[in-house]
């Protein structure tokens, strides 16, 4: 009955040549089963494509063109606030510009804001979180102090102060959002690093002679990466919503930029017109709502499929 090591190959008979499945592909597999999440993913994909096309000047190029109408007497006037029609499926705005094109262009702006913001805050959060969690001690104290202090300053006021330093405009708002928004993720990353630092596999890596940076970024980081992904997908929602509020407050999109925040901010007075001009508000809100919903659903699904706690 004794078996020599090296001869046995227990119970794996079924999966001899089956391709390896990392937790990632496993997660993807599970994600694929969540039909709502897949649908959301495609919606996001469509948004991204539209955004990039708009950004490249291939789609909705007429977003800044005024249009005119001719009344019975032959007077030419601006096609201001024309309701949805065949020509303008989502109507026109005060200057007779096509709302649909403007809303589509809005996705490009949102994408820019979200990407800039995410890039900045993820970089800061991961770096500081990793250092604080892994090294602990004095470094941890300093980083904790930094984010506790930042967290205690009301976010919007902090943003405002930052935009005064950086200047107004979308890019700066995105940068400011990034500079303010890292605290939450940093806290999570720190906790994760603390947790993983104590795991045996880290000790094993140490015992193998791996240095601290190798451990931090080659060994531990992939285990915390799902948090980054979830945070990234929810961060998109945050950025999109943040742009609206900041634009309303007057710090975000400029007067001529067709961002969703700009359109919604203007909608307040338009809605109260007689007859009500509801189409810009509705279009921008629905556009925003769908992409936020998709990101929220996807973020949720990602959380479910990536969280190792649920996996076990």
């Amino acid at each position, binding site marked *: 009955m004794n078996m020599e090591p090296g001869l046995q190959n227990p119970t794996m008979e079924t999966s001899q040549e089956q391709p390896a499945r990392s937790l990632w592909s496993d997660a993807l597999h599970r994600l694929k089963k969540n039909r709502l999440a897949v649908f959301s993913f495609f919606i996001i994909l469509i948004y991204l494509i539209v955004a990039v096309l708009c950004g490249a000047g291939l789609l909705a190029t007429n977003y*800044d063109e*005024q249009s005119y109408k001719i009344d019975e007497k032959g007077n030419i*006037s*601006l096609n*201001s606030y024309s309701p949805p029609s065949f020509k303008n499926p989502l109507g026109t705005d*005060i*200057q007779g510009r096509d709302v649909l094109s403007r809303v589509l262009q809005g996705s490009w702006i949102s994408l820019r804001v979200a990407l800039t913001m995410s890039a900045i805050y993820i970089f800061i959060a991961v770096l500081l979180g990793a250092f604080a969690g892994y090294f602990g001690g004095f470094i941890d104290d300093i980083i904790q102090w930094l984010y506790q202090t930042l967290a205690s300053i009301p976010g919007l006021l902090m943003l405002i102060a930052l935009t005064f330093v950086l200047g*107004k405009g979308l890019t700066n708002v995105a940068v400011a959002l990034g500079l303010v928004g890292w605290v939450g993720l940093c806290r999570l990353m720190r906790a994760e690093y603390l947790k993983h630092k104590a795991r045996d596999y880290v000790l094993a890596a140490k015992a193998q002679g791996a240095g601290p940076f190798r451990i931090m970024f080659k060994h531990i980081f992939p285990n915390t990466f799902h948090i980054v992904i979830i945070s990234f997908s929810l961060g998109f929602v945050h950025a999109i919503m943040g742009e609206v509020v900041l634009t309303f407050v*007057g710090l975000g999109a*400029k*007067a*001529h930029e067709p961002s969703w925040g700009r359109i919604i*901010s*203007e909608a*307040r*007075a*338009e809605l*109260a*017109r*007689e*007859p009500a001009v509801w189409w810009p508000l509705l279009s921008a809100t629905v556009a925003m709502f769908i992409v936020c919903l998709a990101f929220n659903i996807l973020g949720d699904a990602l959380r479910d499929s990536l969280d190792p706690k649920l996996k076990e």
Partner: protein
Amino acid sequence: MRKEFPSLVAVFLLCICGCAGMANPYASEEGLVVLHYSIGQDPKGFDPVRASDTLSSGLIGQIYEPLYQYAYLKRPYTIEPCLADGMPEISEDKCLYIIRIKKGVFFQDDPCFVATNGKGRELTAEDFIYSFKRLADTKNDPEGYWIFQGYIKGIDEFYEASQSESPTDYSKEIEGLKALDRYTLRIELNKPYPRLLWVLTMPYTAAVPHEAVEYYGEEVLNHPVGTGPFRLARWDHWHRIILERNPTFREEFYPSEGTAEDREQGLLRDAGKRLPLADRVVLTIIKQEQPAWLYFLSGYLDVSGIPKDNWNTAMSSLTTLSPQMEAKRITLWRERSFSVYYVAFNMNDSLIGMKHPEVCKREIEEKRKSAEEAREKGDSKEAERLDKEADELEKELPYLPQKNEKRRKLRQAMSLAYNRPQRIEIFANGRAEPAQGPIPPGFNGYDPNFKNPYSEYDIERAKLLLAEAGYPEGIGEDGKRLELSFETTGASTTVLQSADFFRQEMRKIGIVINIVQNTWTEFQEKLRTNRAQTYALGWIADYPDPENFLQLFYGPNKSPNPNNANYENPEYDRLYEEMAALSDFDPQEAKRKYELCRKMEHIVTEDCPWIFGLTYWSYTLNHCWLKNYKPHPFAYNTYKYHSVDPELRLRLSQEWNRPTMFPAYIILGVILSLAGLFFYKLKKQSE
């Protein structure tokens, strides 16, 4: 498990409250005559020296009183005594004014009158001297100092001195201000000041008791102590201001003279009654136009303008109210507003500006002179710098006329591309006209026959001029497209939309406009420091004298003074100086003044430092229960004439505000059934 029930009951009760007209924002007012007005901002305070905006002025004017006031009903606008006892005695050279002050006028009771235990003190001539000195005290940030600057003898010295004194010495005499006795004020001027009487109606010059300033210090802006018809009862910042009848207000009566038209409109019904007519004025601060408009429609406000987005609700044509408004028996006041809306170019700018050779020469001289002075002082570096600058200007000088010409063409082109009719249509619902020059229609000195050659929308001509200016199709000699920055005055929707529209207009002739978004404060700072390239602003007349508009182009008035375009033309300045000394009341002088106005108008429209944009009509609506309302563009103390019929207001506003209940019942039903499910499950589980 019964704990949750009270909250459900509470929700239900709330809905019942909804039925009972919860939308009415006011508490009950037991038969008092209360005026309900709204303002769009929290006022800056109740200190007359800072009454620089119409909003603050309109409130300060109800509490503090100046020497003179506008007659409420009379048109054209005439002045009558307010605290003064009769019109002033003016000397031959028009430089000496003797003004008598009404006897028996008391300040309102206030704790600041310590000596009299809070009883108000009688007003004297010294109070005016004191108040004028306050206006010349830099420590008060006196935004109205310009009205006396250079005119009253000795006041400039006081102003200068106050900069270094701490605290300012108020015992120091001003030569031109003397109290001959308790009730006589003597004002001596450096030069004739034909607008002095207009100025003396402005709240800047109202009488402030020194006791109040001493007692309250900086807080005096929250504790006005005046002689006026009302006193400040309550000020909840950003919420509302309540003015109450001042019980010690002197005897003043509702005017009994008026035109037949006034009589027809019922404006003379209260003739001879003692003022003020209302017991209380409630000013609700509503920042947004929409809610304010809605409150007006619901009958919670007595007066309203027409927000541009609600034009169709209010009007069926430019002059007739909509049937809906007619049904509510709302009255329309349609008047010219003495204002000009313009886009200004910064004349100091190297792309679009203009520098008159004469001015340039003067600058060179000045620079050389100060370089000399610096050298004498031993500051050679400074001297060198100044010399260098002077050299550069000198090099520039020969090319100036040619450059000026090109840039003028550029400005003219932009003025031509400025689509006034379309703006009027989409931003003003048609209630404006293209402005021809600096003086708005209907105003003193306005020439109805004058036609600005650059006010017609004409893209072709604009393009032509642009090409002549060196920017064919908007492309400059260096091959780059012309880019200009446009500073906004705020971030409100209308401001931004209008800026965006400007961008579109200029795009049509190939000019790129970069919109720079500012807050009002930032914008002012940019004006002050000359950093704005182009921007849109408006000017509202302070008093009915064309000088008020024409001074905006007077060289010495350059930034930080009101000539924010920094326009300077020696010829214009000479004409202005002559015009400013002329009075409207003397027919001879008035004629000359009119001629001068024409010349000046011609110069500015040709030089085009502004795109003269629009002049507005002002539309005001008031409810049928508001009595004696007649808009006045210059008067700030009109609340005392207004009155209402409270019962009518109550009855009508209740009638107009009935909520639709069925959606509430649906929502309530859903909530209740969910709560039911919750308790059902709990009960089932415990079994």
